[in-house]
């Protein structure tokens, strides 16, 4: 990165600034198509939902701190634990990793100036926001979904849940799924087509491999959820009988459809965390990832194999032994690509010279908790054992170690790691370390005892428990742990927030091996003045190439400054193929999202004709979208 720029280079970069700088102010943000701004909007929105989900968790733990608690009534408890699951999965972790981290970083890492479809990118954000507000409108009304985040029928059918709680769930998931589907398409096309010339597929950062796998997994998993939710709403609203045993339907159809989505979903949750880990580790241990190609392959394999294991969520429903054994085998096979990655990370850390700053600490924490969560996952691939602990707190322990310990820790570490790049300021390192230890301890104290209390027979989703079961002390400890964990998380956010306003403004104190570190901090609106040439998977460690880029800037070569342009390259070898003209500033994405929000709001209120009207409005906004002829 050039900290001193010659007058000639400045002339070129000023021109690029003029082409790419977006409008300031609220209107500028509302109509933005800049992937960095969209990433930032996703970041703050998902952080807010993380807070909401966290409050829900604290309410649950406060209710369960002792037997016969009175913090929440049974009705409120059922809504709170359901919303906790929905919020954390659909409104926090997926949009945070894909929408915030993915959107901000992927174009930068591949040497592009934006995503392949900038307006669709904005649309996916506004739809996500709409779907989140839609779900929370339910909570504010007191009709939040209340049958658990996986919402089994017949409990979730009209007969047993007559209000519109479940309708917020069914419509909300379809609504949210549209955002993720659009985002996946955008990620895949961006990664395939917009990589800088020379960045062939085998020179792409591991972070991008992880996100490519995530995007394909989302694309193929979401339809199953949408069909499940469609059937649910048709049963509930129009009296269809997909799930109704009395009329030839099958309650288990819901479970199958849900988990065909649900299992890939958990790999979708964790793969971006793997990607973040593979970005942070080389930066702090000063060497490249051990066995890079095998790690890339393992990342893809995890996503692919994840589609074949879903019945392991259903080992107790009464399937034949043959069926359960097949899926147990598949579930065990998937351990291998995860183990490959785990030991690649460990080998890289051992053979490097690690500098244990805050981001790396979070990755160490991630590794430790991924091992614990992975091991408990292996134990429940032992069918008879699972048939004892299924639906008990043991399972809650397992998935919180893998989702919180293993998916969220890299997010927290990533927040620290890229904070200097995104903001141009430095956070407070000692506070960062303290925030890590607090969070690490809080996580352990909250979730580890759950293994024990589950083995002692405590079922999950219970709003209270009797005092003489031997569960009281463990629940008390877990609840104290949750307050500690909350303190750690608050400290992280406080550290970053205060540092944003008062941290020293300097170059980042560390640097990764991928191209986002070649830009200024924060990156300019056009990302790269000169489209970088790439000749290895570690572009920042190819100092001659980066120097050559600077020289080309001086000579005015490779600027692509005749318009709002970025290059498109071929899929495998990244040979330059054409120059794309990218859109900027469009009102159509937020307007389309608004129309779609209207559709779902009217559906849940059963005003079907008005819903159709909003659909027509949405069609009109799409016509407006296509008035001009920039790329989508």
């Amino acid at each position, binding site marked *: 990165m050039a900290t001193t720029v010659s007058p000639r280079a400045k002339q070129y970069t000023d021109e690029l600034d003029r082409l790419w700088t977006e409008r300031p102010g609220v209107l500028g943000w509302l109509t933005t198509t800049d992937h960095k701004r969209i990433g930032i909007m996703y970041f703050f929105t998902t952080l807010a939902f993380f807070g909401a989900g966290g409050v829900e968790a604290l309410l649950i733990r406060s209710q369960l701190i002792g037997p016969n608690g009175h913090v929440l009534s049974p009705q409120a408890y059922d809504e709170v634990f359901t919303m906790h699951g929905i919020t954390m999965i659909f409104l926090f972790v997926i949009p945070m990793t894909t929408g915030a981290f993915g959107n901000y970083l992927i174009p930068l890492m591949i040497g592009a100036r934006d995503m*392949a*479809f900038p307006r*669709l990118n904005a649309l996916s954000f506004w739809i996500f926001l709409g779907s989140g507000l839609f779900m929370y409108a339910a909570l504010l009304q007191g009709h939040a979904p209340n049958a658990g985040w996986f919402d089994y029928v017949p409990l979730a059918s009209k007969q047993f849940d007559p209000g519109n709680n479940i309708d917020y769930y069914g419509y909300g998931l379809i609504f949210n799924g549209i955002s993720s*589907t659009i985002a*996946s*398409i955008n990620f*895949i*096309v961006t990664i*395939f*087509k917009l990589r800088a*010339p020379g960045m062939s597929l085998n020179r792409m950062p591991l972070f991008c491999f992880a996100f490519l796998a995530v995007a394909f997994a989302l*694309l*193929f998993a979401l*339809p*199953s959820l*949408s*069909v499940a939710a469609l*059937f649910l709403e*048709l*049963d509930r609203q*129009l*009296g*269809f*009988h*997909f799930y*109704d045993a009395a*009329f*030839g*339907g*099958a309650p288990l*159809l819901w479970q*199958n*459809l849900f988990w*065909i989505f649900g299992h890939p979903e958990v790999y979708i949750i964790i793969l971006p965390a793997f990607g973040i880990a593979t970005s942070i580790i080389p930066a702090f241990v000063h060497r490249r990832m051990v066995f890079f190609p095998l790690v890339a392959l393992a990342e893809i394999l995890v996503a692919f194999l994840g589609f074949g294991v879903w019945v392991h969520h259903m080992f107790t429903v009464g399937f034949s032994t043959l069926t359960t054994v097949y899926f147990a085998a598949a579930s065990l096979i998937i351990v291998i690509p995860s183990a490959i990655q785990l030991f690649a990370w460990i080998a890289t850390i051992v053979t490097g010279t690690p500098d244990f700053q805050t981001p790396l600490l979070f990755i160490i924490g991630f590794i430790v908790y991924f091992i614990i969560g992975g091991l408990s996952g292996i134990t429940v691939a032992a069918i008879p054992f699972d048939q004892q602990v299924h639906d008990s707190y043991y399972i809650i322990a397992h998935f919180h170690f893998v989702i919180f310990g293993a998916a969220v820790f890299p997010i927290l570490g990533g927040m620290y790691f890229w904070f200097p790049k995104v903001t141009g300021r430095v956070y407070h390192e000692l506070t960062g370390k303290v925030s890590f230890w607090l969070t690490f301890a809080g996580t352990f104290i909250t979730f580890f005892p759950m293994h024990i209390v589950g083995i002692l027979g405590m079922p999950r989703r219970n709003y209270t428990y009797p005092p003489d079961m031997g569960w009281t002390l463990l629940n008390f400890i877990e609840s104290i742990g949750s307050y500690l964990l909350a303190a750690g998380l608050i400290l992280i956010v406080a550290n970053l927030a205060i540092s944003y306003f008062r941290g020293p403004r300097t170059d980042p104190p560390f640097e990764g091996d991928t191209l986002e570190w070649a830009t200024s901090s924060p990156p300019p609106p056009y990302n790269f003045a000169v*489209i970088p040439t790439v000749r290895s998977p570690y572009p920042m460690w190819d100092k001659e190439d980066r120097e050559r880029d600077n020289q080309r800037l001086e000579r*005015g*070569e*490779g600027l*692509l*400054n*005749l*318009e709002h342009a970025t*290059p*498109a*390259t*071929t*899929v495998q070898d990244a*040979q*330059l*193929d*054409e*120059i*794309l*003209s990218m859109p900027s500033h469009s009102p159509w994405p937020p307007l389309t999202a608004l129309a779609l929000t209207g559709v779902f709001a009217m559906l849940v209120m059963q005003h079907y004709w008005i819903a159709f009207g909003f659909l027509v409005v949405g069609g009109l906004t799409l*016509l407006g979208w*296509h008035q001009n*002829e*920039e*790329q*989508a």
Partner: protein
Amino acid sequence: MTDAAGQVPRSAHAERSRAAAAVDRSRAAQPSGWWGMALFLCSEATLFGTLIGSYFYLNFGSHRWPPAGITPPEIPGPAISTAVLVGTVPLMVLGAAAARRGRRWSAVRWIVAAFVIQIAYLATQVLLIRHDLLDFTPQGTAYGSIYFTLLFADHAHVLLGLLLNGAVLYKVARHGLTNYWLIGVRGLALYWYVVVGITVAVLFTVLSPSL
């Protein structure tokens, strides 16, 4: 100022049919818009795979399929109308090929021809469904639920295709076969190939009790 390498086209500037066709020829890889449509269609195909899978899940889980009191589906009507729809595929192929050669009005004519036949197909299907509804309803049995949902989902995609036809034809006729709308025509053709394929799969599924 020169671009990265003087040879690759700045594709947005191809606003006449011949220029757009030249850009299309010069590309080594499929354009982003084509990829976007292809991936969207992967998602839709998976959607239908799930719907069809659900049909057979309910089928294999029940003792009688269709349940007692419902006549198994008739083959001729649906089969013939679907065959006619399949006949629009070569028309779309020719339309896309004409567009890729820069032949704007030729492309429009082929697409219009397909458009007319597709409308006739949808109208026929509506009549067939109304006939079915006299015999059984989606609210009566799970069989009815999945049968009508599968057909309705398919026809919704055909209807969407008709709307896309209209939009693309309008734009190509009014604004010309620019690079953007050439990709649009190719995407539209791709859409129809997959939707027609899905329709055939749906046909075999709903007729399976009678096959």
